[in-house]
């Protein structure tokens, strides 16, 4: 972590001052996410893909679907793995090399949100029990940074999975073999939506932009499913939340999430 410059401190006090008047630095309402642009099938060679721009944060997600060996204790379920990576072109401070704790957390929180919602019905992705299953790999790459990568990556992964077509495999001589010309949608049971909220002073703001992100005291990412239930949560940052704030964030995530879910559904329909 680099020490903050004088300008950053000034920006933080300006953001806080505006929040005291109920305003945000980019003119949004406190519970208003930034404009979300979703382009599906951006990478035709992938089985599914999406290019998502949340404000000025941009993420590309590609889904690859291929046969794999099941996990030893989960022979009756397909595999789902979601990753996230910050590319060096996304921000001047990003360096090449193994991921640091921030990026590891990002990838794990995005994976957890989709996994815990049971978005993909993995029981339908079995080629032969205990031997061969279908693996769905959703890899996010961040190409431009302006705060809140948790939601940008989650929306990109969700949109990419929704747009995916899975090939069909059959076991022949103990080897999974592709059945030509048979493709189907990935079995979807719900659409998870993550909503990240920042805490600055005692104000809760939805979808912090880059300036707000570096001024935040703490953050919370909550994923809800299509039924309006809460299925994953992660608190971060070096401050805490009161009980009332945690409950309020839960309510906000359901409300804001419902609107974003509609956008994700629209993107799927317009992409086909």
């Amino acid at each position, binding site marked *: *972590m680099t*020490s*903050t410059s004088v300008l950053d401190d000034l920006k933080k006090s300006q953001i806080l001052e505006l929040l005291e008047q109920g305003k945000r630095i980019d003119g949004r309402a406190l519970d208003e996410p930034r404009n979300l642009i979703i382009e599906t099938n951006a990478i035709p060679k992938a089985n599914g893909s999406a290019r998502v721009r949340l404000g000025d944060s941009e993420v590309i997600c590609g889904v690859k679907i291929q046969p794999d060996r099941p996990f*030893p*204790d989960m022979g009756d379920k397909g595999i789902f793995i979601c990753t996230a990576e910050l590319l060096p072109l996304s921000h001047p401070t990003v360096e090449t090399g193994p991921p640091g*704790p*921030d990026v*590891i*957390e990002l*990838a*794990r929180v995005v994976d*957890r949100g989709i*996994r*815990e*919602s*049971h978005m993909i019905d993995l029981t339908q992705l079995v080629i032969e029990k205990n031997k061969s299953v279908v693996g769905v790999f959703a890899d996010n790459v961040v190409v431009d940074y302006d705060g809140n990568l948790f939601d940008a990556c989650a929306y990109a992964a969700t949109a990419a999975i929704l747009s995916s077509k899975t090939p069909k495999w059959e076991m022949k001589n103990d080897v999974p073999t592709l059945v030509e010309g048979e493709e189907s949608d990935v079995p979807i049971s719900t659409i998870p939506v993550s909503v990240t909220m920042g805490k600055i002073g005692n104000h809760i703001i939805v979808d912090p932009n880059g300036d707000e992100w570096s001024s935040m005291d*703490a953050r*919370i990412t909550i994923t809800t*499913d299509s039924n*309006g*239930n*809460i*299925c*994953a*949560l*992660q*608190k*971060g*940052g*070096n*401050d*805490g*939340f*009161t*009980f009332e704030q*945690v*409950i309020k964030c*839960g*309510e906000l995530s*359901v409300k804001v999430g419902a609107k974003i879910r509609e956008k994700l559904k629209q993107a799927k329909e317009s992409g086909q």
Partner: protein
Amino acid sequence: MGGREATLVLLDENGIRCDGRKVDEPRRIMIKAGGLKNADGSAYIEFGDNKILVGVFGPRDVHPKHMSNTDTGILRVRYHMEPFSVTERKNPAPSRREIEISKVIKEALEPAVMLEKFPRTAVDVFIEVLQADGGTRCAALSAASVALADAGIPMRDMVAACAAGKAADTIILDVNNEEDQAGQADMPIGYMPSLEKITLLQLDGVLTPEEYKKCVETGIKGCKIVYELQRKALTDKYFGNGEK
């Protein structure tokens, strides 16, 4: 993880859980402050079958130097599991899971520790999980708070931690390993009882908004139980007939 019994009953008709506890009953918890000679502060916790040792060093010089901050001290936390702590041997190298847990524990402790009193220094917290049985991050966080206090580092409050969750459609306190594997939700909570602030919060598993609220409330109750045991551990060491 593998040897799970298919017949496991998470909650029987009398409201008793698979390890004999009631729904709002935590596991047996034993916390001891001190114990290590070389560390500036230390603590040992047994939380059910979890056994965790924490050592604290600092405030001390920062190495590498570029990590130091002229405005404040920094907190560094390493959560590490021994290869023998789980059923199947764990690779001793830090996993992505351990790196994430180190980060969330660090961020849970930071609001409590008055780091601004020690600019240019580091406080290092080393957490060693000797035996794991579900809920290690909560047990580790609780022990780390005691070890920081034992090191004499000024704190606004201690962070107590306990998980709540959902198994057999019921909100339960202190999720054990079986309930984590076969249950419906797990929500670890870290809480500063005097300041009424939640500093660690995670969830995996599906909860309705009502269950979500009840789960947070249940977890906070557990934290308050742990808090009393943390205070007792320090009282025993410094004001009781425990070791000096």
